[in-house]
């Protein structure tokens, strides 16, 4: 019996139909450490953790915690063994308060079935103070930030007495400051003798937070390394299975004539607040114009106005001199605007459709995909087979799979394949690499660059400043719904842009 391990998973295998998600995977996590599980999208990290948390059952293999073999069949079993999990897509009831979400399923009662909110509140307040969480227990989930929601998830696990906490891609939705805070929280928890397993594909965070790292690739164990003895580049290679370039090779920008012109654009959000307020910009052929800015400064409304998803209050949007503002998404598509939307699951794909169906969403009414209103499935399928091969959308045969069954990275590749195959003149990409791993990011970046080299205009709206700086030929900084400055990429540095993003003048 070796009780120094909080979690041991031995030769875990899991099949989904004929697809082998995990193939004899081992995992040993020491007590009181932060253990990272690193792997590309779809490598099987989340599946492994869902088995530990009782969400799935393994087809073979053993799970041990604290030196004893366990049968974990439901999340309830896991909770009673002191295992807590924070899922990538938060498991929170939006209409409930923070407090209600925390106690759900484990409520204190007074009298027959009546919830004792007072007692729960006192208990959770203390818990929150112990971990320096500053959180309003009476706020509704729908009204608090994503970073706060994550803390609610963590408190939820702590409230249930979790000693082993699984965090699934915890940083993919956070701002840089929130990530720093989360890492502090993690260190704080480890000092309180908790064990943390963090699933991630972000190398920088592993280097900053973890003690040990287990690498998984395509459902197989690759390596287990002490973080102190490795570096980002080595980890990336282990994860992807080949050397990864962190910088992209860019050819000289050959800028053509003006393609997309936005003049004095004003857009209001649902609450009638002016989010875009007199914004003007010009996008040329053969360039990438990056929009840098802090979230909520009008990026979303700008995007929605350009794609006619939202009505512009005033101003004009022209492509080749032709007005397209306030037309329809179909019209803007026909005018030559292709879109990589921010949320691939909500607006990029119809998750219940197959990839083949998703690949023709915008043009299914045209030949050769349909004739006289009758779909030609053969052509649709061939189109998808060709694109999935070309853009490496995994697994093999993904053309016939439900889009929702693919991993995030492959969903994104499918969208990019579709949009590039539309062969529009302008590509609008919003957060195109959100939540993707280094391999997939490299792929997406190269795809965007090659569009530019073909003479297309690319409007890149991203909250990742690194990404904007790396790809753009010019950087436009958006603040309070206006472009405050446009800077040539070669003159742009993080500090100067950061100052502009925060509303600082004179940069």
């Amino acid at each position, binding site marked *: 019996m070796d009780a120094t391990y909080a979690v041991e998973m031995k030769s875990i295998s899991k099949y989904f139909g004929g697809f082998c998600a995990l193939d004899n995977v081992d995992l040993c996590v020491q007590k009181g450490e932060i253990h990272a599980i690193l792997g590309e999208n779809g490598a099987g990290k989340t599946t492994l953790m869902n088995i530990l948390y009782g*969400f799935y059952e393994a087809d073979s293999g053993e799970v041990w915690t604290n030196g004893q073999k366990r049968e974990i069949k439901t999340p*309830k079993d896991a909770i009673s063994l002191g295992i807590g999990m924070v899922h990538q897509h938060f498991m929170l009831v939006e209409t409930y308060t923070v407090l209600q979400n925390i106690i759900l*399923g484990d409520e204190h009662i007074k009298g027959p079935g009546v919830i004792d909110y007072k007692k729960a509140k006192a208990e959770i307040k203390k818990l929150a103070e112990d971990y320096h969480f500053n959180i309003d227990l009476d706020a509704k989930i729908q009204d608090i930030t994503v970073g706060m929601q994550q803390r609610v998830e963590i408190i939820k696990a702590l409230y249930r007495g979790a000693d082993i906490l699984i965090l699934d891609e915890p940083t993919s939705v956070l701002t840089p400051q929130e990530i720093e805070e989360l890492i502090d929280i993690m260190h704080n928890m480890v000092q309180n003798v908790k064990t943390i397993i963090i699933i991630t594909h972000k190398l920088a965070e592993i280097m900053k937070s973890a003690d040990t790292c287990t690498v998984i690739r395509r459902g197989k164990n690759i390596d287990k390394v002490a973080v102190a003895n490795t570096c980002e580049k080595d980890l990336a290679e282990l994860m992807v299975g080949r050397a990864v370039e962190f910088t992209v090779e860019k050819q000289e920008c050959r800028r053509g004539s003006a393609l997309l012109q936005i003049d004095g654009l004003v857009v209001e959000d649902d609450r009638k607040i002016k989010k875009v307020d007199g914004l003007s910009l010009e996008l040329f052929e053969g360039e990438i114009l990056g929009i840098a800015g802090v979230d909520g400064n009008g990026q979303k409304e700008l995007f929605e106005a350009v794609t006619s998803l939202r009505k512009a209050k005033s101003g004009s949007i022209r492509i080749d001199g032709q007005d397209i503002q306030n037309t329809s998404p179909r019209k803007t598509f026909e005018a030559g605007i292709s879109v990589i939307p921010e949320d691939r699951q909500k607006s990029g794909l119809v998750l219940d459709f197959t990839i083949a169906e998703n690949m023709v969403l915008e043009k299914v009414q045209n030949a050769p995909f349909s004739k006289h209103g009758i779909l030609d499935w053969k052509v649709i399928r061939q189109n998808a087979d060709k694109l999935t091969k070309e853009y490496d959308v995994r697994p093999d045969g993904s053309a016939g799979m439900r889009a929702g069954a693919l991993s995030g990275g492959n969903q994104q590749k499918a969208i990019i394949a579709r949009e590039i195959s539309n062969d529009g003149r302008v590509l609008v990409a919003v957060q195109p690499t959100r939540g993707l791993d280094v391999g997939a990011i490299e792929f997406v970046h190269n795809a965007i660059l090659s569009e530019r080299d073909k003479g297309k205009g690319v409007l890149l709206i991203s909250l990742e400043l690194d990404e904007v700086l790396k790809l753009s030929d010019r950087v436009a900084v958006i603040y309070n719904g206006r472009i405050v400055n446009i800077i040539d990429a070669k003159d742009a540095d993080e500090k100067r842009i950061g100052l502009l993003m925060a509303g600082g003048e004179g940069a």
Partner: protein
Amino acid sequence: MDNIGIVFSITLMYATPLIFAALGGIISERSGVTNIGIEGMMTIGAFAGAAVGYFTANPWIGFACAAAAGGALSALHAIACVKFHANQIISGVALNLIGLGVSLFLSRLLFDGVTQTLPVPNKLPKLVENGPGGLNLDSTVLVVLIFIIGVWFFLYKSRGGLRLIAVGEHPAAADTLGVNVFRVRFLAVIVSGLFAGMGGAARTLAVVSSFSPIVISGHGYIALAAVIFGRWNPVGASLACLLFGFAQSLVVVLGGGDIAIPSQILAMLPYILTIVVLVLLRGKTNAPKASGIPYIKGQR
């Protein structure tokens, strides 16, 4: 002005069965299961209440059996939709047909081949009879009032309610916290049947005194409209039911008056009101997010 007592009485008389059914609808929908079969459950409850009330001469036993009959029918819905992930609308429509069919069949069997039961010897007692201004109140009014408070308290104050609403909003979240989504939904659907059954009996044992094929004609659907109108809240839905009851009372009062409105037009009033109300209620309704979607573990 003499009519106020009468209008009040008729409003409550018509609204009470609807409120029972609406409470059932709320419980089911809040757990994430659309229950369009409320109509059929009301029908079978109306029949069971009248038949048992006739044979036992005790309306309360009839009332209890009506609840049981509604519950039994809804168990089918629970099995189909919760256990086997069947389409909830189709299952509900099937139940509406089954509810009516079984009621008519049993009626012919027990009442010499007619689809109408004999009047019950004792109706449910009145709380107020021939009060001032023609006020008449059935005891079901008191019963339903207790249930409204009970359901409200359950939903918003109790552990069961917290879990029920969570299951209807985000079943995966509830599941990860060890709440048994299937059990919660199963029970919720059965309870909704109990309520609908009582709603049916509230018509045949209090409003009229026997079952006929038209005694429940669209009441289940109106109750469901009231659920939406009342934003899935027991108090709101009850107020909505009162509005429909009021429309019905106008039918009665105006129909007996001097104004010449064709009775057919008047009879349409509550139904037209239902449509108008639902049209006016466009836009954001805070329906339970997972309503109508079967929960399949581990599906992305």
